[in-house]
C-alpha cells in the first residue's frame, strides 16, 4: 500500500444554516487545480459542474456486536470504493454531512473498511459553527457538541452577526471543548481554501508545527510572580477586579528559572486540589497552602505575609496580576519588584462536559505497560473519547511511534528516527468527562 498516493478526504460538518453549502461552493469555484468529488447528502443544494457531485443517503450502519466504534457509513463505502475504480481518479474527496450527523461514523469508516483505508486517507474534519446560534445548539443537541469535539478546524462563521465580546467568549468556549482544533473566524465562509483542505490534520507533526503550544498543560492558575523578600511584614494589595475571589498559593523557596517554575506549578496543581482556606481582607496568608482570598467588598483589599526567613517566594495566582493591579509592598510601603513572572495556560471552567486532555512527558515508555493502559482506557472510556493523537517514545525503538484514533479505533506506527532529539511523549485526548489527572498518572506509570 503506497500511502502517499491515497486520495485525501475532508469531512465537512456543521448544523443547518452554519454555511456548509456556501463553503462548498467557495471551494469548488476557486482555482485550485484539484479534481474534487463531493459526496452530498440527499438534501444538499450544490449545483456545480466543475466537480462530480454524488448524492448519497446518509446510511449509518451499526454492527451486531453493538460496538459504536464499528458503526460506519455504508453509503460512503459503496460510493467511494466505486469511484476509485475509474482511471481518471479524483485528487480530492469532500464529504458533506447533514446538520444532525454524528461525525464519528464518518471518520470511523476510513479506519474500519480495509478497501477504503487502502485507497483514501482522512485529511481532516472541518466543522462550521454558526456564531449566532451555536450557544443554543450546544445546549440542545449532543450532535453539535460532537461536531465541535471531532473537528480539526472550527470555522466560526457569520461573525458579522455577533459582537466582538460575545465572539471572544464563544471562541473560548469552543477552545475549552477542543484544544486540538484551529479556530478560524469568517463572515460568509470566506476563508482561503488551504484553511480547510490538505490539512494533514491526522498528522500530528503538522499540527504541532502550526500550534506548538497546543500540548501545553492547563493549570488552575494563570500567573506566577517571584519576589525576593527579607524578614518582615508585607502587604498584598489588590484593586477592584473582575472576580469576587481569587485562589492563591505562596510557595516558599521558589527559584526563578523556568524549570523551577514548572516544578512549582506541578506542586501547586496538587495543592490546588485540596480545599482552600478562606481568607478575608486584612487576614494573614499562610505559606505553601491553598488559600482563597475574598474580594467581594468594594474598593481595594489588603492581605498580609509574615516572612521569618529571607528568600524567594512564588505567588501562584488564579488570575493575572494586572486584572487586580496586584502588588506587594514592604513595611515601609515601597512596592517590591517582581524578580520573575510567568503566565500559564489557564484551565477552562468546564461548563461543557467535553474537553481536551493533554499529556506531555519526557522519557521512554514500556511497550507492554503502555499497551495494557491504552487497551484498558479505550475499552472502558472509548465511547467517550472522540479523538486522540500523539507520539510516544517506546523503549528500545529508535523511531517515534505516532498514533491517532477515533473512539476505540487506534491506529499507530513507528515513524521517523529520534536521532539526537530528546525522547519524549505527547498525547492529546478529546472526550466527554475525561479525568485528566488520573490519565496523566496512569501514563506516568507506563514510563520506564
Amino acid at each position, binding site marked *: 500500500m503506497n500511502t502517499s498516493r491515497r486520495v485525501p478526504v475532508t469531512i465537512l460538518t456543521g448544523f443547518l444554516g452554519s454555511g456548509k453549502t456556501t463553503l462548498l461552493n467557495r471551494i469548488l469555484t476557486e482555482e485550485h487545480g484539484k479534481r474534487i468529488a463531493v459526496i452530498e447528502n440527499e438534501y444538499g443544494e450544490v449545483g456545480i459542474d466543475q466537480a462530480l457531485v454524488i*448524492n448519497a*443517503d446518509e*446510511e449509518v*450502519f*451499526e*454492527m*451486531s*456486536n453493538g460496538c459504536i466504534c*464499528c458503526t*460506519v457509513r*455504508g*453509503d460512503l*463505502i*459503496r*460510493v467511494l470504493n*466505486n469511484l476509485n*475504480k*475509474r*482511471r481518471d481518479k479524483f485528487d480530492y474527496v469532500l464529504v458533506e454531512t447533514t446538520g444532525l450527523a454524528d461525525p464519528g461514523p464518518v471518520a470511523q469508516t476510513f479506519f*474500519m*473498511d*480495509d478497501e477504503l483505508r487502502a485507497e483514501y486517507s482522512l485529511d481532516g474534519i472541518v466543522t462550521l459553527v454558526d456564531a449566532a446560534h451555536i450557544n443554543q445548539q450546544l445546549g440542545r443537541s449532543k450532535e453539535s457538541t460532537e461536531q465541535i469535539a471531532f473537528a480539526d478546524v472550527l470555522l466560526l462563521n457569520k461573525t458579522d452577526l455577533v459582537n466582538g465580546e460575545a465572539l471572544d467568549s464563544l471562541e473560548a468556549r469552543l477552545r475549552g471543548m477542543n484544544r486540538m482544533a484551529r479556530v478560524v473566524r469568517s463572515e460568509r465562509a470566506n476563508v482561503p481554501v488551504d484553511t480547510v483542505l490538505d490539512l494533514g490534520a491526522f498528522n500530528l507533526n503538522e499540527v504541532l508545527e502550526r500550534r506548538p503550544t497546543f500540548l501545553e498543560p492547563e493549570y488552575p492558575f494563570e500567573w506566577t510572580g517571584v519576589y525576593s523578600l527579607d524578614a518582615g511584614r508585607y502587604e498584598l494589595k489588590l484593586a477592584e477586579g473582575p472576580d469576587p475571589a481569587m485562589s492563591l498559593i505562596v510557595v516558599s523557596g521558589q527559584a526563578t528559572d523556568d524549570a523551577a517554575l514548572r516544578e512549582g506549578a506541578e506542586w501547586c496543581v496538587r495543592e490546588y486540589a485540596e480545599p482552600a482556606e478562606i481568607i478575608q481582607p486584612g487576614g494573614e496568608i499562610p505559606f505553601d497552602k491553598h488559600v482563597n482570598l475574598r474580594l467581594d467588598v468594594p474598593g481595594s483589599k489588603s492581605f498580609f505575609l509574615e516572612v521569618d526567613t529571607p528568600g524567594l517566594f512564588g505567588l501562584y495566582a488564579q488570575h493575572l496580576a494586572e486584572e487586580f493591579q496586584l502588588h506587594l509592598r514592604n513595611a515601609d510601603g515601597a512596592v517590591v519588584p517582581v524578580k520573575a513572572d510567568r503566565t500559564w495556560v489557564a484551565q477552562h471552567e468546564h461548563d461543557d462536559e467535553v474537553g481536551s486532555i493533554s499529556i506531555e512527558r519526557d522519557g521512554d515508555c514500556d511497550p507492554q505497560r503502555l499497551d495494557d493502559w491504552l487497551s484498558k482506557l479505550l475499552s472502558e472510556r472509548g465511547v467517550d473519547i472522540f479523538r486522540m493523537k500523539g507520539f510516544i517514545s517506546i523503549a528500545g525503538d529508535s523511531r517515534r511511534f505516532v498514533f491517532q484514533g477515533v473512539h476505540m479505533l487506534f491506529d499507530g506506527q513507528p515513524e521517523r528516527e529520534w536521532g539526537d532529539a530528546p525522547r519524549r511523549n505527547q498525547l492529546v485526548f478529546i472526550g466527554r468527562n475525561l479525568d485528566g489527572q488520573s490519565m496523566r498518572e496512569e501514563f506516568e506509570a507506563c514510563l520506564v
Partner: protein
Amino acid sequence: MSGLKAGSPTGVLDRGWSATVGDYAIAGGWVLGGEALVVGDAGGGVYGFDGRSGAAVWERHEVHEGGVLAMAIHPSGTAFATAGQDGRVLIWSAAEGQVARSIDVGSGWVENVSWSPDGQLLAASCSRQVCAYDADGAEVWRSDDHPSTVSAIAWSSIKELATACYGRVSFFNPSTGSLRQKMEWQGSLVSMVLSPNGDIVVCGSQDNTVHFWRRSTEQDSMMSGYPGKPSALAFDSAGTLLATGGGEAVTVWSFRGKGPEGTRPGVLEFHQESITTLTFAPGVRRLASGARDGAVVVWSLQKNGNGSPIGAEDVGDSVAELYWRPDGDGLAALDAQGGVTVWRIGPVNGRTSRPRAAQRTSSSGG
C-alpha cells in the same frame, strides 16, 4: 502448497487470448453459448469479443455516463443487460451489440441487475428500491423503499427474488408484489448468494462475518473469524460447498450431513492479498478464485471443502471478476487495468502438451 507460482502458466490454465477495454473492467459474461464474451467498464463502455480469438467484434463507448456497475446475461445467451451510474438499465442483443431497450430505473446508481432463471423478468436495484421488468422493458413491479440501499439481489426461483440490505434479507414475488419471507439480522450485508435450490441464503457482512439462514427451518448461523469483509461468495452447483472470501484465504464450508455448523472448513491458501471473486465451474467441484494480488487460481475441491490448486496465473492487477465458459472448458478474468484474459482449461496433472503463445488483441483498434 503445490509449488505453483503465479505468473507461470502452469497447471490447467492454458492461456488463450487477452485484450483490454477502456477502463477498470467491472463486469461481463459469456454469451451465445460461449462463442462471445461481453465486458462493461468503469468508463461506461461495453465491448464484445470473439470467444475463441479474442478479436473485438463490437465496442460501444460512454454508454453509461459515470460507468457500468453491473451486468447480467440472459439465460438464452442471446441478450444481456447492463446497469450504470446513470440510473439506467440497457438490454442488448449479444451478437450485434445493439441496445434493444433502455429503462430509466431511478435517479441513483443502478448497482444490481439480474434475470430470472426463465428469462421472463429482469430485476434491478436502484438506491432503496428494487424493480422488475418484462422482456419488453415494461415495469412489472417496484418495491417500497428498503431500510437502506439494496446491496445485492438474487432469484431463488422463477417467481421469487431475494434482496439484501442493511439488517435484512427479503423474498418477494415480483408478479404479485407480495413479501414472502423476511430475515433480519443487525449487520451491513454486503454480498449474497443462494444455494441452487434456493433454501440456503448466505450473506457476507461488513463486520467480517458470514451469516446464513435455512429458509425451510428459519434456522440461522454465523461464521466469524474472517480477517476482512467477505464480499466474494459462491455455491457449487450441487449446493453442498460454499466458498467464501474475506481475507487472503478461501474458506470453504461443506453443507453435507449436519454441516457446516460445528465443522472445520477447508482453507485454501495461495493468494497474497484479499480475495475479490469466487466462482464454481459448472457441474464439478472446481473453483476459480481471483484476488487483489492479480492471481487467478483454479482449485480442485474434495467433498469436505479441502482442496488443492491445479492451475494459477498472474494477470498483473487486481482481479475484478471471473467467468467460467458455460461448458466449463474456458475461464475469463477481468482486471482493474481493464485487462481481459481467457484461458482454455487443460487436463489436470501438469501442463498441456502443446503450450500456445498468448495472443494479445486490443479493443481500441490500435
